[in-house]
């Protein structure tokens, strides 16, 4: 059962206006903070398309823990039946996958994909802590005035899935609207549109993220959150050694 607490939108808008005079780093951090729920539990559907044809669908349950140095996400594959029971832990730059009826999670590279164009880190992604701001300028996105950030991965951060990121953040609400993700070589890996913002647990959350392949606009993956809530799990549950003991539950 979806439990969404609605917070008055004017409060969000007011705080955004105050931020407009602040430093780029603070704006980016606030944008992250406004849409990120600590101890978030969620159910998300990922549908991959090739043109208009659906090529793959995955349903996941997950839990997010915001950490001081990095985020940790636990995910459980609900559908399809062929993947049901798999468990995934994203612990900063370390990604662990536990197959059904096994007890030792295998370590994956951050480049491994969940489905289609979406990687494990795309399900819940923040930027301020992991990237340095090279520049911030005024721009527009979908006709809306926006801050245009050019970001480069921090040397100290291990998660180097995307070395450079271009972000467009709506000025009036600090909603993340659009992002482009680049490899170290400068190749555009993927583009993401953040849509369908709704109030959940006091945050302004994009319930739909549409990810396009950088080299083929016909290939895209749509991530749709259909349940978002809060469940506080002990930090020790976001550990490799706990993954086989984790008993996933649908989001509250």
């Amino acid at each position, binding site marked *: 059962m979806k439990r969404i607490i609605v917070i008055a939108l004017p409060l969000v808008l007011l705080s955004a206006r105050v931020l407009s005079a602040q430093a780029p780093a603070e704006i980016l951090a606030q944008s992250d903070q406004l849409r990120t729920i600590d101890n978030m539990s969620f159910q998300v559907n990922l549908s991959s398309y090739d043109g208009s044809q659906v090529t793959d669908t995955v349903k996941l349950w997950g839990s997010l823990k915001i950490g001081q140095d990095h985020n940790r996400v636990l995910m459980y594959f609900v*559908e399809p039946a062929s993947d049901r029971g798999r468990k995934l832990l994203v612990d900063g730059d370390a990604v662990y996958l536990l197959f059904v009826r096994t007890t030792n999670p295998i370590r994956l590279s951050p480049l491994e994909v969940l489905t289609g164009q979406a990687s494990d880190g795309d399900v819940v992604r923040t930027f301020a802590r992991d990237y340095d701001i090279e520049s911030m300028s005024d721009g527009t996105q979908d006709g809306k005035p926006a801050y245009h950030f050019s970001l480069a991965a921090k040397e100290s951060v291990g998660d180097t899935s995307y070395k450079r990121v271009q972000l467009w953040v709506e000025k009036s609400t600090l909603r993340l609207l659009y992002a482009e993700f680049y490899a170290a070589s400068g190749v555009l890996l993927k583009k993401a549109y953040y849509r369908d913002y709704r109030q959940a647990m006091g945050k302004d959350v994009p319930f739909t993220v549409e990810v396009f392949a950088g080299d083929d606009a016909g290939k895209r993956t749509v991530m749709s959150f259909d349940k978002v809530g809060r469940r506080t799990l002990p930090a020790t549950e976001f550990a490799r050694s706990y993954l086989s003991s984790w008993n996933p539950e649908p989001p509250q």
Partner: protein
Amino acid sequence: MKAVVISLALAAVIAFPALALEGEIDVDATPSATLVPMGPPGSSLVQAEATRMTSQLAVSGHVSPADSLTASGTAWGLLDTLPDYNPLDVPGNRLALSSRLLQADVSWQIIPGELIWDTGKQIIHPSSGFFRTPLNLISRGAAGNVPQQIPAAAPQWEEGWIGTRFLWIVGDVSFEDFFAPRLVWSSDVDSALGYVTSQQDDFLDQVRIQAHVGGVDLQAVGLLSTGGPGSPDPAIHGQAGLGVDTNIGDRLTVRGEASLADSLSRLTVTDPVLLTTTSQDVPWVVRAMAGLTWSISTKTSLILEYGYDGLGFAGSAYADAIQYSRNRMEAGGSAPDVLGQFGSFQAGQHYAFARLARNITDLLTAQGWVEVNLQDPSAMDGVGLSVTNDGWGLSGSITNTWGGSGTEAGASPFLWQLDIELKLFF
């Protein structure tokens, strides 16, 4: 008796409607070719083909009667047309049924997320290796000895060990202890109980410490085992191992493991011409593995691994094992199998493995792999294609061996194998 056991298992499932159930049916057709003598021992070898058909059903369920309590289990059954997988020795009863409770345990989170106590039947697999797993100090191999499409060390279906485990997690460090009692019973009892669980010859106690330090995963494993009073091997034996795995950049994961056993036994050749063997204890057996997985792109990955096994043969002992196996094959295979005593393609000490896999589409995956005996060198390779949809999967592969008559591949009767597998998920 078989029917009673299966009926009881099904009744248990039906009796707990709150169980969350999932399952899988695998139907496998495996035509293969082997070398067999054309006539009496000593006659020339000819190629013989046989097709093995296996149908496996596995049902898993879990239920949480309380917040901190979870019960889970997996029952498995196999219908097999050629249990010995050897056209030289086709059994009279060609249709064999076997079953096991692979895993069944109750987990109590004494302190949620920190202190967990599991009791029941559990699969214990500390290793991160793909084709060699030095840290899997206790392992039972594939249930039913069903053929696999790729030589992954961890089989798809494996039976666990009855025992109890404590897991304590403190920050980025965890401590784990698993104890399994010795469980032996008469052959009469085993004729029925063997459809539920296998016997356990030794008392086992395995300690495992894991730590996540600066992005690197470290683990140490120690095992003590003893047959105890009344056992053919009542002595206490020890094994210990260390493992590490980490990422390098965003595309590479690397791993390494090494283990040491105080003493392990093997069958060794005393005379390769007379086909005589003896059991030999090898002191201080070292096993090691180093490997990497390289994500070449988001769709393509490459696994490379090297494996060392001190229990394998080297030097003149290896040459004797190869000659013995060649003579054994020509003699009709009646002498003990020295070459395959550890499994397929594992008689030497040094092996390398490579596997390239590519997701052609979201549903279609192609892969090719090769395993090389670095002492010959001879090789076993395979290519495969698999389609996996929501509720089903279809895959096909062909496995081949390469090597002259003086190599491990050449001394094995195995020539090639096709494998067509249909999986249904529910």
